[in-house]
């Protein structure tokens, strides 16, 4: 019996080749995210030269508060996008959430805590309904969530036809509180990052990305698509409700039409941060970078005292760069696979 062992020299060369390929796949996979980080760094650098005190906690507090509603909405959107779906109903949920908070919050902290919990649970339940419709009736996520957006917006308008309602002072004080120079919004940002670091390693987190990458093979390896849909859309609804609750600490009012302003920006923040609209690729950190890019552009346009119409123009250009990077990464990934 003869055994042919691979010569040691050949095996090392193969290992090196594998490692090089791994490195390049890693780089290709993360290129859109890295480009987003680069863009944010450049924007902050320019901003830092134009305004005093940009590299202070004060600036971080202000920008995080400005971005937080969008960030919370985009967190839910990110989870849905990773699964390969989209959730337009967050617009309706945010409106409904602010309206319910402004009408149902009582005066006592206990009542407020209970009402806030109920709003968060309602968000989750509505998201689960979206997931159910998408899975059971096999409908397009875009159309299902377009319909629920409309239903939720109408409900919000029935409860409160125009901006109004009351929120207790301590609720708003919480949104603007700070501890040792760090605001509650920065605290929330840290919590969001911790949530993501934990969530992406969970079984659910891995299954969501696997389903987004390739639904068929995920299904074959035992992933329940129904469960994934219920939970991804449920989480998206939950985060939309949280976005609504945070928003009320900034506006102090219920706004039955305000949610629509966060739908497309939530998708834009995620895409700028390197999340693929086809599912499976990217992460929450990218979305945070994307949301900050959108916020810093607004500050930059102000400091440069150019016409504010430059803000959507610059945001659009950055979105285009992100989509381009994403599509190139997609193509390279496909090429290296074949």
């Amino acid at each position, binding site marked *: 019996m003869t055994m042919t062992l691979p010569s040691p020299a050949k095996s090392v060369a193969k290992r090196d080749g594998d490692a090089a390929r791994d490195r390049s796949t890693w780089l290709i996979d993360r290129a859109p995210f890295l480009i987003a980080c680069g863009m944010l760094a450049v924007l902050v650098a320019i901003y830092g030269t134009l305004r005093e005190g940009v590299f202070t906690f004060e600036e971080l507090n*202000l920008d995080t508060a*400005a971005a937080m*509603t*969008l960030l919370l909405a985009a967190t839910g959107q990110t989870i849905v996008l990773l699964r390969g779906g989209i959730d337009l109903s967050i617009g309706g949920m945010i409106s409904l959430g602010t309206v319910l908070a402004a009408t149902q919050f009582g005066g006592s902290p206990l009542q407020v805590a209970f009402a806030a919990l109920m709003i968060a649970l309602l968000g989750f339940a509505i998201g689960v309904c979206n997931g159910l419709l998408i899975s059971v009736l096999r409908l397009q996520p875009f159309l299902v969530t377009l319909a629920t957006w409309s239903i939720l917006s109408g409900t919000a308008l029935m409860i409160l*036809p*125009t*901006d*109004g309602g009351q929120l207790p002072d301590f609720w*708003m004080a919480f949104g*603007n509180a700070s501890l040792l120079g760090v605001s509650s919004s920065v605290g929330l940002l840290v919590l969001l990052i911790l949530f993501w670091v934990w969530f992406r390693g969970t079984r659910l987190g891995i299954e969501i990305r696997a389903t987004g990458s390739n639904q068929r093979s995920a299904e074959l390896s035992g992933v329940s698509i129904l469960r994934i849909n219920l939970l991804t859309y449920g989480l998206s609804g939950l985060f939309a409700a949280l976005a609504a609750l945070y928003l009320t600490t*900034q*506006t*102090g*009012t219920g*706004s039955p039409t*305000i949610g629509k*302003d*966060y739908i497309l920006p939530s998708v834009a923040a995620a895409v700028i941060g390197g999340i693929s609209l086809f599912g499976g690729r990217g992460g929450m950190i990218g979305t945070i970078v994307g949301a900050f890019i959108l*916020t810093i552009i*607004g*500050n930059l346009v*102000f*400091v440069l*005292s150019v*016409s*504010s*119409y430059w*803000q*959507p123009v610059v945001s659009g250009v950055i979105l285009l760069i992100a989509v381009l990077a994403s599509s190139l990464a997609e193509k390279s990934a496909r090429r290296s696979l074949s």
Partner: protein
Amino acid sequence: MRQIAHTVALAATAIGLMAGIAGHAEAEAKKYKIYLSNNFVGNDWRQQMERVANVSVSKGPLEGRVDLKIENVENTVQAQINSLNNIIRSKPDAILIDAGSDTALNPTIKKACDAGIVVISFDQVVTEPCAYALESDWKRIPAVMAEWMAQQLGGKGKVFVDRGLAGAPISAALEKGYLDVLKKYPGIEVVGSYNGEYALGPEQAGVASLLAAHPQVDGILTQGYGSGAIKALQDAGRTIVPVVGFTYNSSALACAKTEGAKCILGSNPAYLSSEAIKLAVDILDTGKKPAERHVLVNGDFLATAPFKSELYPDAVTQVIEIGKNAFPDAPPGLTLPITPDWVTITAAEASGS
């Protein structure tokens, strides 16, 4: 001795004069940094509002007194909050706000007030108590116009009433304003209502369909142009009845040029922005605050013939005169009257042509 006294007197006068000049120079040098935050620029009124704001600080009593910066946002509350936060950080003397929401900016506005900034909301005003609210008198406008209509009809006749835009608070307020006055005349009957939506098309279509159903109508109270109602009457071959509308250039021209037309037009002047700037400068100059948080601006009415209101005796009605207060060469969407009385803004300046 006398000579010394004379010299001393001269010196004193000279010092006094110099001090006077210095004081004067100091007052003149005080230039205020004022921001105007506008949530929406998608219609003629808002664009005229911004143009006249710029014109009114470039001449007249405010010339050289104000460094005016206009920040437009894309019609979202979040964008206006973020923009206001940026404005507050640049420490201006005053902020003027045409607001996207009457309540959602309140916490941000409170922050500005706490930072010692004078805040004046105008046009779409806010409920925050620390900010002034400068707007047209929306009670007076429909009341005076309904009173005019009742006078035209001699207290007797059938009218159509425009409901404006469904769900808009201002529409409901205007409709109520018309009806409250008309109710006092038992001979006047509202025979039909339509939604004019502040656009010519829906106004003309709404009136046309009501005309088809009602053989007799003696007056039409629109919330929009009024000229759409006149066109509908003409198309239906009816006599032109008295029409109530608002002071768009095209409305004033249609009223003046159409034979037999009788109109009154109410004004929500685009120079509310100029008035807000003047109020801010007055507060900053004198340190004196207006007694009331609400500051009402009364734009003159325009009508085809002189009219004196009994409900509001101080309401001024200008008779429409082409070239003087209606301008054939200016855009149809220009809002009249163009200028407040303390500065002269021309039609060309207001329309940007």
